[in-house]
């Protein structure tokens, strides 16, 4: 095999935490949510893996994955078109008796045969709800140096209020760490103050993973963290790997809005993008045109836009049109949104191809931005 000299293969779970952003995943999944004016969330983990020479990547889609497949194509943009390895998209196995998997155990159990046939010694696993420019090689080095069975990435931060309120919609994990080793994993903690907040990024020996998943699956267990790691912390050497760089964790509509807006600050934007390049699907748009009469202040704008009105404190994705006399303030306008003449909007998130017709006035608030679903005309 050509890729037998590679250390690790990647597995990505693009549906994780879908339930936290029900509006945005109505027509897609977490991984294909548009972010930062021209990217989808999966671009960050996928580019990071590709940049670290991980070129055998499996994507365990569960549902609503049309938009993701359209976005990924053959994987060319991430240089993942390979004869050996490359990009594998694994849809749920459809048998009469089987139902779609819920957690990572079910997902991995469905590809055990595939995992057995691979040559890489390690498996790197990640969700796609965090936009981060991650150096997987540094983490794999740490995993090898410590002799761990499993290494888990975490960052230090307070738990966001909105994630504490959403504990029925997905598990999140905090860690107790003693001298680098994880001694306890807490599920959906309500603690205040700085926590060791798990990033759901793991490095694990491939053969050990197969073993652990096999055992858990036959016992009917579902979740890698809750059912495999947490109960076995005394037996398994689980090491913590601290990530200190910039990250944007999407854990609700409000955090989606805030994490986009944070990128208007160059310090944050550079924090996310100054590492290795982040690739995305290319649209071959024209540069953005500012026509006479346009006003722009504190905005991030992708290519392909035509601005004739006023835009302020906003993020515009590719191909957005803002007509004469329109005012756009504190908004996120996704791809091909059309804002017609004289419209006045604030704190609005428009999904792809939304049209706001002439003269309309709509205002959400800082704590509750309004959301308009894909293809709707207001």
């Amino acid at each position, binding site marked *: 095999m050509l890729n037998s000299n590679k250390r690790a293969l990647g597995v990505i779970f693009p549906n994780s935490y879908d339930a936290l952003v029900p509006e945005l995943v109505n027509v897609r999944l977490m991984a294909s949510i548009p972010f930062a004016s021209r990217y989808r969330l999966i671009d960050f983990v996928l580019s990071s893996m590709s940049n670290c020479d991980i070129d055998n990547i499996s994507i365990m889609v569960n549902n609503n994955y049309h938009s993701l497949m359209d976005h990924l194509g053959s994987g060319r943009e991430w240089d993942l078109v390979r004869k050996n390895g490359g990009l594998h998209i694994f849809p749920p196995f459809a048998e009469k008796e089987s139902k779609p998997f819920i957690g990572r155990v079910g997902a991995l159990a469905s590809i055990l045969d595939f995992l057995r046939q691979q040559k890489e010694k390690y498996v790197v696993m990640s969700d796609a709800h965090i936009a981060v420019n991650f150096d997987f090689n540094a983490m794999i080095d740490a995993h090898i140096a410590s002799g761990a069975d499993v290494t888990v990435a975490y960052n230090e931060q307070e738990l966001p209020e909105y994630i504490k309120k959403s504990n029925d919609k997905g598990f999140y994990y905090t860690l107790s760490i003693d001298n680098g080793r994880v001694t306890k994993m807490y599920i959906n903690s309500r603690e205040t103050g700085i926590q060791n907040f798990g990033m759901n990024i793991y490095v694990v020996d491939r053969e050990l993973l197969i073993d652990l998943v096999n055992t858990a699956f036959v016992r009917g267990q579902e979740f890698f963290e809750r059912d495999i790691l947490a109960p076995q912390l005394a037996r398994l050497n689980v090491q913590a790997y601290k990530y200190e760089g910039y990250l944007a964790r999407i854990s609700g509509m409000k955090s989606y809005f805030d994490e986009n807006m944070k990128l208007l600050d*160059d310090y944050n934007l550079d924090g996310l993008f100054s590492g290795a*390049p982040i690739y995305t699907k290319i649209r071959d748009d*024209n*540069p953005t045109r500012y026509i*006479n009469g346009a006003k722009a*202040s504190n905005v991030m704008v992708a*290519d392909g836009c035509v601005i004739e009105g006023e835009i302020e404190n906003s*993020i515009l994705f590719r191909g957005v049109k803002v007509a004469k006399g329109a005012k756009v303030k504190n908004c996120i306008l996704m791809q091909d949104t059309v804002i017609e003449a004289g419209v006045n909007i604030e704190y609005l998130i428009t999904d792809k191809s939304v049209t706001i017709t002439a003269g309309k006035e709509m205002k959400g608030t800082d704590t509750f931005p309004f959301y308009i679903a894909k293809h709707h005309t207001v």
Partner: protein
Amino acid sequence: MEVPWEEAPRFGLMVADENDRITEFQEKPKNPKSNLASMGIYIFNWDILKKYLTEDEADPNSENDFGNNIIPNLLRDNRKMYAYHFSGYWKDVGTISSLWEANMEVLDPEHSGINLFDDNWKIYSRNSGMTGHKISSDAVVENSMITDGCRVKGNVKHSILFAGVQVEKGAVVEDAVVMGGTVIKSGAVVKHCIIAENVTIGENAVVGAMPEGDSAGVATVGAGIKIGNNAKIGPNAMVNKNVEDGEEQC
């Protein structure tokens, strides 16, 4: 393509009869007999082209030039050559001023007729892979075209910025074409000029000037050049060496 008579000497020109059959071809003549310029686009019958290229290659006196040899030889032999009239936007950007003009025409498609914005007839190019561009709250942007990776904190008016251009606070860019990766430092004034890739324009430096009277020169700064702080570059300058702080060139 019909070109203005005063520009005709820059082109290969055709004289054609009422059936558009070409009767004469002049390559960049001093005294043009026609203003029908060749766009350099030909369709040949393959066997004819092969024959004339082979013969031309074997001729020690030939300049091996399309306009000077191949086309005249075809005319000499009375081969059938016809002109095809193109009426859309076309511009030979072989001079600094025509390159500058063509860029400015992109900003005014209604009058210039150039249309790069047809979704059914896309113009493809390399993609920079940079993030969306940023316009800060200190910036003023008017009638300009801006692409990925740019960071604008100064004033940009009637200009074209390529990928990754930075315009710092208080800088002024007007009627300018600024290519990829160039940094225009705070207080610098850049007008009516073409700045190539990865140039640094120092603080409070002045490059080019808006046309006044007879002087309508388009200043140019070559790739990778550093223009020092407070330096002054006149409207006719072609800068291809680094310029010291405070230095003046006209």
